[in-house]
C-alpha cells in the first residue's frame, strides 16, 4: 500500500506541508481564506533540531494500536489506510496515548484528526507530498522492514 514517507535528508523544515495539509482539509478553495489569521490544525507536523528536520504523519500501521485502542470504534482500517469516523470520536485521546509516532492530534473541533492520505478531501492525493518543495515527502509503496 502507498504511504506517505518523509526523507529527512531532504526535509528543509519549511513547514509548507503543514499549511498545505491544513488547507487541503479546510474545505476551502482558497488558502488565504482557509488559513489567514487563525491557528492551523495540520495532520502532518514538522519536527526536528537545528540539524535535522522531518515531518511526521500517520504511518498507517499494519497493526495499528490506535484502531485497537479506540474506545469509540471511531478508528478503523479501510484498504490499508487508518481512517477516522469523526462523528463517533468523543475526544478521549486514547489514540494519542498509544500512537508511538505522535501522529494523531486534537483537531479544531476537539475531536481527533489524523492523516487520511487526502483520500477523502478535494486534494485527492496527499497535499503534503504534492506541495513539498524539495521532494522530501513521498507517497509510495515500500517493503515491510
Amino acid at each position, binding site marked *: 500500500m502507498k504511504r506517505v514517507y518523509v526523507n529527512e*535528508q*531532504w526535509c*528543509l*523544515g*519549511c*513547514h*509548507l506541508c503543514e*499549511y*498545505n495539509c491544513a*488547507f487541503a482539509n479546510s474545505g476551502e478553495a482558497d*488558502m*488565504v481564506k482557509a*488559513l*489567514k*489569521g487563525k491557528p492551523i490544525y495540520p495532520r502532518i507536523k514538522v519536527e526536528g533540531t537545528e540539524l535535522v528536520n522531518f515531518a511526521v504523519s500517520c504511518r498507517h500501521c499494519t497493526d495499528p494500536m490506535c484502531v485497537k485502542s479506540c474506545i469509540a470504534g471511531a478508528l478503523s482500517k479501510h484498504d490499508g489506510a487508518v481512517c477516522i469516523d469523526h462523528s463517533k470520536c468523543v475526544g478521549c485521546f486514547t489514540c494519542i496515548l498509544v500512537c508511538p509516532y505522535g501522529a494523531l492530534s486534537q483537531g479544531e473541533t476537539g475531536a481527533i484528526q489524523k492523516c487520511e492520505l487526502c483520500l477523502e478531501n478535494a486534494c485527492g492525493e496527499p497535499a503534503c507530498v504534492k*506541495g513539498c*518543495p*524539495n*521532494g*522530501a515527502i513521498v507517497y509510495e509503496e515500500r517493503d515491510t522492514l
Partner: protein
Amino acid sequence: MSVDFIYPEFEVVRNDSRCIACRVCERQCANEVHSFDPKQGSILSDERKCVNCQRCVSLCPTRALKIVKSNCTLRENANWKDDTIKEVYKQAASGGVLLSSMGNPKEFPVYWDKILINASQVTNPSIDPLREPMETRVFLGKKPDRITRDQNGNIRCKLPPQLELSMPVMFSAMSYGSISYNAHASLARAATELGICYNTGEGGLHEDFYAYGPNTIVQVASGRFGVHKDYLDAGAAIEIKMGQGAKPGIGGHLPGAKIIGDVSRTRMVPEGSDAISPAPHHDIYSIEDLRQLVYSLKEATQYQKPIIVKVAAVHNIAAIASGVARSGADIIAIDGFRGGTGAAPTRIRDNVGIPIELALAAVDQRLRDEGIRNNVSLVAGGSIRCASDVVKAIALGADACYIATAALLALGCHLCRTCQSGKCNWGIATQRPELVKRLNPDMGAQRLVNLLTAWKHEIKELLGGMGINSIEALKGNRLMLRGIGLNEKELEILGISHAGE
C-alpha cells in the same frame, strides 16, 4: 561610512491580505530579509538584504510576495547610467574590485536572436519526427584523414578516442566548490541518464561521483586542483581549461571559507586555504607548451581519452583555434563572452571577450579553410539558452554545445547573480549544508533530464522542418540560417545570407 549612498535595488512587496504568516519566507531566506514580528503576528522584510533570488516568492504558498525593482531613481542620464553610478559608490566605499557572478548581463547584441532558421516548403518535404527516425547522436573527437585497409582489404576501424553523446549538448564545467555537492550529483545523474557528459570544472571529482565517470569530463585547469591519476582515468574525456568566457585572461579564486570538508579533500587543498587558479597555466606560455600538456595527459591515460582544450572567445580566436587544432587536442571548446561564472571581476566579465556566435563562425570557417576541421570537434558555449540556439550553433559549425546557466536555471537558479556570496538560497552555489540540502538531486536530475529531453524534441522538430533527419547533416549547414538586422560584416563573419536573400 554612515551614509548609504545606494537605495536598495529591490522592493519586497508583501500583499498583507494574502500573507498567512506561515513564515516560510523567513525560514527560506539565507539573507535574512524576512522576520516574524510576534507582536503584530506579521512578517517584516528588510529589502536592503534582498538579492532577488525569488526563493521566498517561489515558496510562498499564497503568492503573497513579489520582488520588484525599486523605482527610486537617480536623475536620468543616458551617459551615467544607474548601475554605473552605483558601482562608483560601491568602489568609493570599499576600494575594491567589483565582483559579479553568472554571465555578462549588458546589452550587447545576441546574435542568436538575429539569426533565423529555414524550413522546407514544397520543393523538399519536411520530416515528421514523430513518424520518422530523427537522429541526434554525435561523436566528438578527431576524425582520421584517410581510410586504411588491412591485408584482406577490410577497413581498419580503429578511431582516435571519441566522446559519444546522445544529443549535441553537454553540461559545461562547474567545479565542486563553486557549486554544491547536490548540484554536482544532479548534473552527474542527469548526464548519465541522458547519455551526455557533465564537467567537473576545476574542483576535482568527489569520490561519490566516480561511478558517473563514463559521463564525466574531468578538467585540468591552471591550479591543477584535484588532479591525480585516478581522476584522469575516471573521466570519459579530459578538458584543459585555458580560459573561460566570463573572465578571459583571469584565473579563479575560491575563498578559503569554501574550502572545507569534502571540497578541501576533493580539491586536494588544505581546509581554509584559498584555492587560487593562476591566470595562465604556468607550464603553458605558448602553443607548443600546450601541445606538451595535451600529450602528457594522453600519455597518462594511454591515449584512451579525447583531450578537450577550452578557450575563451577572444579577438584572435580563429588563429588560436587553428593552433589548438594542430596541438593534438581532439576537441576545442570555445566559451563566449556571455558565459557564466561563480565569481568574476565585473569589469572583466562585462568588457572582455567576444560573442560565441562570431567566434564559432570564424573558427569553423578558419579550420575549414585550413583543411583541419576534421582534426578537432568544436564545442560552443557561453550562453546557449535554448534548443534553437543549439540548432543555430550546430548550423554555424559546432559539433556540440556546452550549457551551464540553462542547467542551473533548471535546478532552480533565478539568476540573481550573487553566487559569490555563497548564500545561494537554491542550494546551488553554496556549501552551507542547510542550503545545499535544498537541492534534492532526485528532483534536480529529473529537471535537467526534462529540460534536455524537451530540447531534444525541439531540435528534432526543427531538424524535421528543415528536411534533415540527422544532426550531422546540420553541422556547418549555414544555408539553413539567415541573418536579420545584421550588417554586411556581421553576415560575412557568420557566413550566412540575410533573410530574404
